[in-house]
């Protein structure tokens, strides 16, 4: 077996500028898509729970399609397919001197659509899990449906939905590696080009694996902190991972 330890450590602790910008792209796209996916997911979840039949059907069809098609296919259809069919082409744009590649925009759209479908199901089940008595109590106090959702139901549902939403974000970060297929220069694509330039495939992809693991681990710790914070709001005594580490 040949393993270039020097190259491995070098890549791990002193990654090249290209690699770091790939890492940055992975994080940026993940965060933006997750935020947009949360907004979309909340809207779709409320549509599915609404009394309006048309809204419910639209939302169900959306979830059915986006959960049933692989993300890779969605990305290719959105970026390459739409352009090839002359329907829509994601153009490069320049915002305050920074060039935003069309592929990046397509990536955010694709990831948001995919993420929104899963998020909507998470939010919907969390809302449904809030006891009926809570809605009744808020109605009896004279809240509108909106106020009840805003002040009573959602704040309680958030606590149930944080763990699955956190997992969804981890999945999303790992899924960004698929963006290499439409030419977004995120961590995976950068790794591929380093690999083909140096032929050190094993070493460099191991480094990339470590970085993905780092991202998901950091997020898991953050998620735990958020869960602890929300539990404290309910008066449940908890010890967080971070505060335990400080003791």
């Amino acid at each position, binding site marked *: 077996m040949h393993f270039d330890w020097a190259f491995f450590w070098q890549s791990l602790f002193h990654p090249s500028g290209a690699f770091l910008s790939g890492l940055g792209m992975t994080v940026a796209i993940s965060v933006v898509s997750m935020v947009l996916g949360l907004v979309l997911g909340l809207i779709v979840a409320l549509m599915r729970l609404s009394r309006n039949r048309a809204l419910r059907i639209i939302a169900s069809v959306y979830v059915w399609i986006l959960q049933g098609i692989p993300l890779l296919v969605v990305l290719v259809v959105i970026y390459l397919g739409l352009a090839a069919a002359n329907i829509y082409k994601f153009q490069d744009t320049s915002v305050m001197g920074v060039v935003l590649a069309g592929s990046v925009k397509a990536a955010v759209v694709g990831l948001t659509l995919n993420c929104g479908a899963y998020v909507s199901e998470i939010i919907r089940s969390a809302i449904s899990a809030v006891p009926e008595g809570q809605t009744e109590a808020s109605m*009896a106090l004279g809240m509108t449906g909106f106020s009840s959702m805003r002040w009573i139901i959602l704040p309680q549902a958030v606590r149930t939905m944080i763990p699955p939403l956190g997992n969804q974000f981890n999945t999303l970060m790992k899924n960004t590696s698929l963006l290499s297929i439409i030419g977004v220069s995120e961590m995976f694509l950068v790794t591929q080009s380093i690999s083909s330039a140096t032929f050190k495939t094993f070493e460099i992809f191991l480094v990339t694996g470590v970085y993905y693991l780092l991202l998901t681990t950091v997020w898991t710790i953050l998620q735990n902190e958020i869960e602890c914070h929300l539990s404290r709001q*309910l008066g449940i005594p908890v010890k967080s991972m971070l505060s335990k580490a400080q003791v």
Partner: protein
Amino acid sequence: MIVQNKLPAEDVIVSARDICMTRGDNKILRNVSMDVRRGEVVVLLGPSGAGKTSFLRTINLLNSFESGEMFVDGHRMGYKKTKAGAYMRDNHHLTEQRRNIGFVFQHFNLFPHMTALENVWHTPVRIMKQPKAQCVEEAKKLLQQVGLSEKMDLHPRELSGGQQQRVAIARALAMHPALMLFDEPTSALDPEMTIEVLNVMQHLASESGTTMIIVTHEIEFARKVADRIVIMADGQIIEQGTPEEVLDAPNHPRTREFLAKVV
């Protein structure tokens, strides 16, 4: 649907007229009619399944009903009167009407993500947009009245059932309702906790003159607080009168049967 009708008299706060409620093939309420005067304390008694809770919940339209009319404080619940005098269904108006009616649930239904104090001031501040400082002060006073000034900053899960129910009563009172409805407020409580909740309710009945309609199984409590006891069976009112009349000299055989079982 447009219905015209004569308004109830001034001193009548609740006027239920021929309320019929069906769920599937079950007739839950059969033409229930009842007038409650301002300041009156009415206790609904009867065997389980008689429709007491169902009827109570129709008053603020937590339960919908198939036919009949419900007037509270001179207004038809769930309807708005047009200039022409016709009644039109209006859900937004219903939301406002409910603010005038306090409802206390069997299982308290406190908001678990808020402290006891927040539970009490939340609706006046967030929904009614009243000044916060003033509402918080009032919430503290209400919690003091129900004997919970020490527990204000605790969350519902840190309180006993009796304490939670007293917070729930304070939460309802914070809206200054013209009418308080109690749906088996002590059925989920241990005996010693039942007493603390009943004491609060008795105090409310005797001191504040609030109109109260109470569904309960506490016969002795009913005797003490009620101006009128209403006995229901099979979705109908079968007998009503003062506690002495109904409890000591019941007319209806079903009332006698019921009282023999519970006393």
